[in-house]
């Protein structure tokens, strides 16, 4: 079975380590906050100027001056700090964030990523994504393996305008967890019940498959 959005978030959360500062993108990455393993301390960075993002507020504590990068109202945890956008991106560009999780339309075997526009159809803007992928060493991209028609989103070369060039090293899709190195996707884990054949079939870029591919632990 392909992973649900929550299962994707759950698998990413297993990569969190005690003491990490983490930036979570909009969409599936945001859900990772719901699965932070018990007993570890993690600080969530929101690029609009908050380190130490907490859960959603109640009707009583809601504050228009306290939002996350997705413009949702949030709270701040004890130990949080607020700062300007310039300071926020100094943290990001300067490589101070331990893990960045973000979504994508396409990723290719060279580690390039496309996520901000589909010419003629959709322009969202890149927001902070270009800075995040350029600044972070430890990035996990979460995305669907293929589109609704079955076309692979893991390509030999991205077709859409790039967000970053050669910067992605790990990709988690609804079917597989992969590493990108030496110009190829390397299959690390498969979603429970998903066959290696299906993953091979839905990966357009070069895919290296080891002899044994374990199922993900969820």
């Amino acid at each position, binding site marked *: 079975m392909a992973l649900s959005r929550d299962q994707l978030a759950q698998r990413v959360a297993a990569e969190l380590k005690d003491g990490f500062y983490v930036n979570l993108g909009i969409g599936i990455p945001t859900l990772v906050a719901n699965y932070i393993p018990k007993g570890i301390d993690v600080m969530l960075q*929101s*690029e*609009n*100027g*908050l380190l130490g993002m907490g*859960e*959603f*507020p*109640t*009707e009583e504590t*809601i*504050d*228009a*001056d*306290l*939002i*996350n990068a*997705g*413009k*949702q*109202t*949030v709270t*701040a945890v004890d130990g949080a700090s*607020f*700062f*300007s*956008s*310039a300071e*926020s*991106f100094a943290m*990001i*560009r300067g490589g101070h964030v331990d893990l960045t999780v973000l979504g994508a339309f396409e990723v290719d075997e060279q580690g*390039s990523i496309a996520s*901000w526009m589909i010419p003629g159809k959709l*322009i*969202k*803007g*890149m*927001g*902070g*994504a*270009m*800075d995040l992928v*350029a*600044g972070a060493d430890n990035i996990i991209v979460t995305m669907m393996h293929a589109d609704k028609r079955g076309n692979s989103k893991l390509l030999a070369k991205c077709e859409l*305008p*790039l*967000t*970053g*060039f*050669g910067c992605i090293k790990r990709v988690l899709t609804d079917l597989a967890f992969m590493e990108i190195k030496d110009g190829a996707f390397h299959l690390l884990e498969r979603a429970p019940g998903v066959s290696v054949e299906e993953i091979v079939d839905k990966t357009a870029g070069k895919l290296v498959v080891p002899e044994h591919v374990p199922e993900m632990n969820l």
Partner: protein
Amino acid sequence: MAGLNKVVHSYEEALKGLSNNMTVMVGGFGLCGIPEGLISHMVKTGVTGLTAISNNAGVDDFGLGLLLKSRQIDTMIASYVGENATFEQQMLSGELNVILTPQGTLAEKIRAGGAGIPAFFTATGYGTPIAEGKETREIDGRHYVLEPSLTADFALIRAWKADTMGNLVFRKTAANFNPMMATAGKITVVEAEHIVEPGELDPDHIHTPGIYVNRVIQGTFEKRIEQRTVKPAEA
């Protein structure tokens, strides 16, 4: 002291000198931390041909979206278009010239502009359409793009507290682009939630020193929320 008292008492005074084809920076992230009254008054002045620099363009009927609707903006420099249908449609039709800029690069361009630095190298955007036509350089084995800084004729800022000399304190994530923009405007106008006397703000806690600020006006704010998210009440 009068020379350092920057308080003005009307929006006409606050935006005096704003004219067609000027460049205007507007603080805020989404609808959070925007100078609401100054934006509304810009609409009233009818100035056109503006270049607006702001992370977003508000929503269709609030914030900078109002100036897009009235077609007073020719060029928009922003990092994110989503959430504003007018913006997206005017951009796709070519009516509005949009310079999409990565958020961190936008913040740094403004910071650099205010600090007298004409350009800087950043790895952000290397190998993407953003870098097309720009100078690049390899430094210690990594590729960087030269990004020119930004300044503006007017910077419109929202602060939580301002003293009459223009020292500013921002509140929570309403700071966002406001502190840098305050440094990068030839004329920086601050719309404050609270105006206090000099000495009432702890000098250790001032985010923006008054030297950057030209005018301060008392604002009233709707503080509209774009994505109202709450957790379910405890049972």
